[in-house]
Each structure stands twice: as C-alpha cells, then as structure tokens.
C-alpha cells in the first residue's frame, strides 16, 4: 500500500480523535453569556435572579463554577440544604478546590448535625488527585490514541512482515491499551455510581434494615452528607461516619 496513503489515513484519524475531544471540551456554547449575566445580577445583590439564570444554564451544562455560584445563591437566599447540595456537586467535579471546602464548612455551621465524615485514606487521596489532574475526557482521548498506535503496529506487522521493532511495538502498545482501558472502565464506572447524597427531609431516621418495621438507630437532619452503600427497593443503606449508618427511604435524600 502506498506509504503516503497510510500517513494521510493516520493523520486523519488522529485529527478526528483530537478534534472530537476538543469539541467536548470547548463546547461552552451559549451559556457563557448567561453565566456572565448572572454574575452581574449577583454583584447587584439580585441572588434570586442570578439563581434563576444559573438554573437555566444547569439544564444544559454542568461545571463546578456554576454549582459553586449556585451554592452561594442558595446560601444568600437562606436555602442552606440546597446550598450544601450544590457545593458538594461542585466538589464532585473539582475535588481539590479549597474554596469549595471552605464554603461547605461555612454552610455546615447552619446545620444541627455535627458528624465528622470519614477522611479518605492515602490511596483514595492519591486516586482522587489523579482524577483531578487527568479528566475523563483526556483519558478517553489518550485511550483512543494508544489504540490507534496499537493498530498502526498491527497494520505494519501484517503488511511489512515481522521484525523486532514491530513486535515490540505491538506488545508494548497492547500493554498500555490494557492498562489505560482498565483505568478508563474504572473511571466511567465510578462516574455512573453517584454514591454521595444529602439528607433533604426533616425528621429522617436511619433504621437497622430496609423497612418501617426495623429499629430506628439514628435521627438525622437535613444537610447531612451520607455515602450510599446499598439499595433495596425504595430504601438505601447509608453511612455518615464510621459510627453513624443505617437504612433510610431514598426519597429522603438527594444524590450528588
């Protein structure tokens, strides 16, 4: 096969891959203007108006700055539970932004439940750091690129015959594809998990099992952050700390 044709095809596939990824990253679209407009309203003290604009943007975009600002608006309008929900949403998208944690601490002062959440262990912190540095979109693009590289080596192997360079190329790129592919699967799986939630209804109780007949273990108030462990029908098992855990109706909490 013509060498030039192969190069053109490779460049084309790379260009499509990169531009496809870039499209996702640069798809700011029309919400930037409204985001700035809401900022102006916030500056003028029109928190409810700014919130309405942010909520409109939220229908088509999710960004940690948007959720952070929504948290501020909810705080300013006295809705502390929703403020916390949105700060946690912002934290999910940008886990190591210090200003988010600071605002969570401020809003937590408004809640009566003072339960110290579980601190992540060293490995979890490392994993979170990697996640904050390498976004899922970047990971997807890298995966696609190494898959392309693997296939180029395979193609050369088939077309030009075996040699040491091509064999090592195939072997090495195959290992990289398997490693990155595995991590990609882990990340996408985690993405869909959404196992953090906030208690939103008053007089909520954590029970020993799923169902009204089980013993009440704890009474929890709105604003408490919990981790969802298991689900059984309309009940979920949650834990707020190593000591506070139990089953609660799913409609009493909102997933982050």
């Amino acid at each position, binding site marked *: 096969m013509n060498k030039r044709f192969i190069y053109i095809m490779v460049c084309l596939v790379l260009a499509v891959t990169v531009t*496809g990824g870039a499209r*996702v990253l640069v798809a700011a679209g029309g919400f930037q203007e409204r985001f700035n407009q809401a900022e102006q309203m916030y500056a003028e003290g029109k928190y409810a108006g700014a919130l309405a604009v942010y909520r409109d943007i939220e229908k088509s975009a999710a960004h940690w700055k*948007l959720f952070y600002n929504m948290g501020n608006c909810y705080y300013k309008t006295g809705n502390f539970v929703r403020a916390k929900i949105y700060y946690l949403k912002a934290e999910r998208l940008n886990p190591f932004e210090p200003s988010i944690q600071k605002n969570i601490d401020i809003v937590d002062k408004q809640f009566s439940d003072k339960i110290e959440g579980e601190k992540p262990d060293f490995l979890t912190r490392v994993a979170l750091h990697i996640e904050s540095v390498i*976004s*899922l979109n970047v990971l997807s693009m890298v995966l696609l690129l190494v*898959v392309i590289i693997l296939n180029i080596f395979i193609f050369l192997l088939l077309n030009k015959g075996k040699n040491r360079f091509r064999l090592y190329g195939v072997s090495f790129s195959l290992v990289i594809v398997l490693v990155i592919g595995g991590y990609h699967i882990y990340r996408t799986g985690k993405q869909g998990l959404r196992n953090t939630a906030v208690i939103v209804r008053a007089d909520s109780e954590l029970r020993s099992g799923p169902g009204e007949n089980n013993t009440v273990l704890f009474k929890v108030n709105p604003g408490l952050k919990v981790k969802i462990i298991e689900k059984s029908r309309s009940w979920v098992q949650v834990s707020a700390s190593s000591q506070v855990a139990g089953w609660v109706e799913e409609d009493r909490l909102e997933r982050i």
Partner: protein
Amino acid sequence: MKKRLYFILLGFLVLLAVSPGLAAEDVEVNAVVSANKIGVDDTLVYTVTLKGINNPTQPDLSGFNDFRITQTSQSTEFRFVNGVSSYYTNFIYYLMPAKTGTLTLPPVTYEYQGKEYKTQTFKVEVVQGSASPPGQQTQPRRRVPSIFDDSDNFFNSPFRRSQPREIDIQLKAEVSKRKAVKGEPLLYRVLLYARNRVQSVNMASNQSFPGFWQEWFPVPQSINSKGGQLDGKTYQVYEIRKAVLFPTQAGSVTIPAIKFELGLVDDGVSLFADPRQVFRSTPDITLQVAEPPPQALGLPVGDFTFEVVPDKKEVDVNDILTLRVKVTARKGNIKTLEIPQFENTDYYKIYPAKITRDNGFDQNTLSGTAEAELPVSFKKTGLISFPALELKYFNPDAGIVVTHKSSAFSIKVAGVKEKQEGGVTYAQGEIIKKGEDIDFIKKGAIYHQEDYYYKTGLFNFLMAIFFIFNILFLLKLYVFDRYVARHPALLKKKLLNRTINRLNLVRDYGEISPILEDYLKEKAGLGLSEINSHSIEALFSKHQVNDIDIKIFIRIKSASELSRFAPQLAAGSAGAAPGGDTNDKENGNTLAHDVKQLIEILKRIDGRIK
C-alpha cells in the same frame, strides 16, 4: 407659675398634634360628563377632578365596558377661595360609545392614603348618528393621539380656524455657545416652527456627530409649544429634540444637519386619513472649539464635586470595608470622567471598583453622578489612615483649574488576621461584597464538564472500528494462518499464484529458469539435480500435458538457462524455439511473449500435475 407654664406647654403640644389635621387639605374626587345624550358617532368628555392630592396617579377606568377611551389629557390648577388655596388635578377622558341605548358610566374608585373615594354613576343616552347640532360637536373627533396633544392645545390656537392648506414648516437648530473649550458641555436644541398641525416627528438621519461626545435628552411624552415669530410670520414653536454635546477636538467643528420626517394632518381632509409626510432638515452649525489652557490639559471640563465615604468606621481585620467615592457633575461629562482611586499600601489592599454612572436630565442641563465602590481588605490591625483624594477639573465659565480634595480619614481595624488556608488568593474583581467566602463567586469560562467524550458517537465508532480490526487480526493469526491457509488446495493455489506473480516481475530472461525450478520442486517434489529436459518431459507426459506445451516449456526454460549462463547465445536459441513468433523476436518482445506463453501453459498444466 409652674402650673400655668405647664398648661401653656400642654396646649402647645396639643396644637402641634392637631395641626397636621388642620393643615391637611380636604381631599375630594369628583367626576362630570359633558352631556347626558350623545350620538353614537359623538365623543363624550368625562372629567375626573381630584382635589388636594399632589402628584396623583391615573384613576382606574377599567370598568367602562360600554365606552372606548380614545384620548386622555391631564391639567392642574390652583384655586384661591376666601384666602384658602386648593390644588386640583383634572383627568380628561374622551370616550366613544360602543353601542346605542342608555349606557352607564360606573363610579370611579380612587384610593389615597388608605382611604377610598368614589365618584357618582352617570347614565348617558346614546342615539344613532350625532346628537349635537352641526358646529357644536363635542370634543375632538376620532384621531390618532400625538405627542403634540398635551401642548398648548392647538384647537384653541388662532391657527386652527385659519389652517393653511399649503405646508409652512421649518426646522431650526440652536447651540448654547458658538465658541467653546474642548470638553465643555453645549446645549443643542432642534426647534420646529409650524403653521400646520403636526402629528408626528421622526428623526430620519443619523444622529451621530463626528467631533462630539453627545448625550441626547430622552424624547418627551408630550411637547409644549409657544408662539414664535419667524420672517415676520407667527408660528407655533416646538422643541422637538435636544442634546448636550461635548466637543472632542479643537478647531472649527461642524454640527451636521439632521433630517426629520414630519407627519401633518389637514383639517379639511378626512379625520381617518393618513398624515401627510414631509421632510425637513436642520441647518449645519459651525463652532470654534479651543484647547483648554496648558495647565488644564487632560483634565475633565465642567463643574464637579466629590466625596469619599467608608461604610463603617470600625472593622475586623478579616472583614471587607467598602469605600464609596462619589463624583457629582453639576455640569460636565460624567461618562468619561476618571474617578480618583486609592493606591495599595502595606496596611490595606484595594480591589477593583464596581463603578456606576448615571446621567440626570434637567430642563436644559445635563448633570450626573459616578460612584465607585472600592472593596478594601486589611493586612494589619490598628488605626489605619486613608489619605485625602484629589479631583482636578477645568471650569470653563470661570476659566480656572479647580482642585477638590476629600477629607482624610482613619478606620479602626481590630482582631487577629486569619491565615488564608492553602494560600488561596482570589482573582481580582471576584469580590462582590464584604463578608466571608460565601460572598465570592467564580468567574471565567465554563463548559459542560459532564459532556463526556467516551459517550460520543465518534469515540464509540472509532473504538468499534479498531476493535473489529483487532479481532480480524487475531482471527488471521490463530485461525486462518493455522488451519485455513495450510489446506493443500489453498497451498497449491498459492504456489501457482506465487509463480505467476514472480514471472510477471521478471525483467531478464535468465530469471525465468529458477522460478520454474522452484515451481517444479514444490509441485512435483523433484530435486534440483533431477530437473532437466528429460525429467520434465517424462513428468508432463505422465500427466497428459500436450506435446506443444511440453516443447514450449522446455524451450523457454533452456533459453533462460542459456541467457543466464551464456547471454550472447540466448537470442539465437530462443529464436530457434518451436512455435516462436519471429516478428515478436525481432521487435525485442521475446521476454514478454514467452512469459505470457509460460503463464498460460502453467495455468493449463497446474491442475493435472498431482
């Protein structure tokens, strides 16, 4: 004595308490109608009079279902009766009946200071046609309301009866000064001199004047007129537009003409007819603009005052203080004025200001205010002083440079400075109001963070393509190559194809022989030493290959060997070969011809040789 003083004081207090009630004017709301009987084509004038109410709002006539309001007007008057003044406001409504019969005008309710006032109910008999004798029509007929309706009532003007058929309308422009200093505010007015009835005025040309910063006054809801003389004739004069112009360049500067489209209404023509459109332009006006004196170069021009006010005198070191710098322009361009600013020091940090600028339009002057809100954070505690700020400007009327200074002030800063966690610094301009981090919002570009690439069709398509390619590769490696490609039928087919491909690539006659030897070696299992003319003939004869093919095969192979080992004899030998084409040989195409023949023979014999 004390008791008497006590009673006097008590009486005085009682008087004070009661006096507002005494001083308060009686409030009355009344209504009158111009007639009790009208024709369906006539207009009924309904007047609501409010007594003793300052700046009243319009009464609510939404309950007038049987009438349509065609026009409204408002007038005010003072009346002096027995030394007591009363303030009256008349709201005049021109109503058209919707049908004939006895129609009811329901009472109008007016609420003032929590109290409700009601007018009386009227019954009006509406008959077909017109109930008024000719020439005694009630107030204006149906016509399109105009901004000139609230003027000095054109209907009472002397021009009404002597309305000229010919158009007599002129536009004039006036500017407050013909000689000015750069940046000095000048009042520019467009005056309409009319002897016709004007219904509408629209600016038909660009109102941008090169060489000037301009601030147009808002278009008024109604335009007042006055009588005026021009060329010995009397006109109604309307001020239709005005602006304040600030020259931005020195020298001879011209205010260009502005074109207006005027809608005129003729009394003699149908009242429902469209107004006649005429166009008029203002004349050009040329001004002489001088540079300000050297000491005033670059300074704002006009008359300004300013002040600096902190929102509190004592503050915690972790709090944000807001300083308000307010500049008021009694005269001058507030939009271009640079507001004096504080500089950062070791004691405090000034963040970028939130600046608001507003113009105020008085009768003939443009005023304005500019306010800068400066958030300030403190780095140290104690009594921290802010220096006086200075505002310099050139006053063109006095011809001097004026310097205004604000007062210096100090703020008491208490508390212990908290260390910022993680050394977080917030981008400038993010501070909106004083307070904790909850008051900061995030700016900058946002995008959909959850619009994941791995969910897009492109990503999945590319991955699928590569996946299929990899699967095919594995199939080839472990299935096709191992089991399919090694099948004898395929191997034979492969040998023939490979031989033909090799023959097609031959460039020299001598290359043919090794290819044929390889073929015979693989095909018939002959050793290299066994391959000669006799063995080939015996092999082919055994598999019923015809004699001609055998001879040609052997001839080409022999010629190839000869060409390989004795090139000079090759041509002669080839030429002697049976079945050879002499013309082709002569043309030098022996090789191509023989290769073609050989390929044909191989295709024929390949199936026979087992």
